């Protein structure tokens, strides 16, 4: 059977791993290469590197880190943040990444997702959505939760699938970094609408939160940052707890 994927999310600013709460108040928490290696040895299923300021300043310095990590980490690697052109994608893949995550540029020019999927294959195009609660719905944000798009995040997810995205990474900006649990409602609503895999990000604080997310249905994978970064729980400890709670995970 297909296992639920546990993904480590490593947000990077310059050469450091950073972590905030609700994508703000960023703190340095370590070296991205070393953290990627640690998670790999602990049995992580996948790693996502996000350049958290690339979109804002129009630059991308993640590729050297990716290049180094790919020599020692033999699980799939996704790169996001500041991916704006086919050239950016090519550079990311040539550095050793398997997939790219795209948010801001997809909102600005939706056709970019289609062209990227046709050029590199849907399997390497992850559409990233930063969703912030707004009344009974969620709005899609860009530039790391700073800019509003005016679009409904759930409707946007469906559009992204139609445009050619092979996976949807949905980050709840409200829950991000809080360690208070996932926005399971948001994930479920998106997943019910799309037929590509959904990766849920934002809010993991315990194995119970992850179990609640998977039991609510809809997520094929979960992206975790704080819980691992601050050593609250190791990858292997989390996976063992999930297995004990009846989740199908790779041990």
């Amino acid at each position, binding site marked *: *059977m297909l296992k639920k994927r546990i993904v480590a999310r490593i947000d990077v600013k310059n050469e450091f791993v950073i972590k905030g709460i609700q994508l703000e108040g960023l703190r340095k928490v370590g070296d991205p290469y070393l953290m990627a290696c640690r998670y*790999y040895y602990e049995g992580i299923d996948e790693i996502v590197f996000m350049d958290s300021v690339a979109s804002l300043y129009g630059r991308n310095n993640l590729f050297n880190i990716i290049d180094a990590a790919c020599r020692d980490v033999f699980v799939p690697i996704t790169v996001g943040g500041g991916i704006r052109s086919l050239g950016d994608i090519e550079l990311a893949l040539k550095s*050793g990444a398997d997939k790219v995550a795209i948010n801001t540029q997809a909102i600005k020019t939706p056709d970019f997702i289609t062209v990227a999927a046709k050029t590199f294959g849907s399997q390497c195009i992850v559409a990233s959505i930063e969703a912030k609660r707004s009344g009974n719905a969620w709005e899609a944000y860009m530039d790391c939760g700073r800019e509003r798009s005016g679009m409904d995040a759930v409707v946007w997810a469906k559009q992204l699938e139609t445009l050619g995205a092979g996976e949807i990474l949905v980050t709840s900006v409200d829950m991000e970094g809080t360690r208070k649990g996932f926005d399971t409602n948001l994930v479920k609503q998106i997943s019910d609408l799309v037929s*590509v895999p959904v990766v849920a990000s934002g809010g993991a604080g315990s194995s119970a939160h992850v179990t609640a997310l998977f039991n609510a249905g809809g997520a094929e994978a979960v992206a975790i940052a704080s819980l691992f970064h601050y050593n609250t729980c190791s990858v292997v400890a989390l996976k063992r707890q999930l297995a004990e709670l009846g989740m199908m995970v790779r041990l």
Partner: protein
Amino acid sequence: MNQPVVAVIDYDIGNSKSMLNALVALGLSPILTRDPGGIAAADALILPGVGAFCQGMGNLEKYSLLDAIHRFIAQDKPFLGVCLGMQLLLEESEEFGVTVGMGVIKGKVKKLAVDPTAGEKLPHIGWNAVCEPDAARWTDSIFATIPDSSDVYFVHSFAAIPVDESDILSITRYGSSIFCSSLHKGNIWGCQFHPEKSGPIGLAILRKFVTLTGYEEGI
């Protein structure tokens, strides 16, 4: 120290860097090539690939690689196709209309049968178990050193359906369907999953494949 020369075919289809990195991690010095001479001289040959079947075949033709691959296989040296590289070994694929493949394994490539009402999605992405189809099938194979039902990393929507059951090295269950997740016929091996992205288990598979060259030390 004497080491086998492992060649990875360079045909502009997906990411060959991960495969090279994995082989380097095994202590090898792999070469990335589309030169027929380089391919013929290799001790083991790997055909990677992520993408569409028709584009894969098209690029093999464009770079005149088909003849070199057939001749390498005829030399009885270890050959491994990975993901699309495995599918290309079959006779034809139904992806975007029918495309003819290399035909070194009898059978077709078809879309995975999934049940969307049961929440089964395509592509099949993630870690899933490779299972030994019958006892002792894995003895002396590239899976000889890994446990039955080991999890490996998949990302695909199509899968091979070999005519001869004896060509099926492993099976994998996804939702309500069971598909052929690896192939073996003589010196030809194929993995639908990505051993280069499947952690220590994947590296163990690659290591075993490389030792089929007869070189054992330093790998």
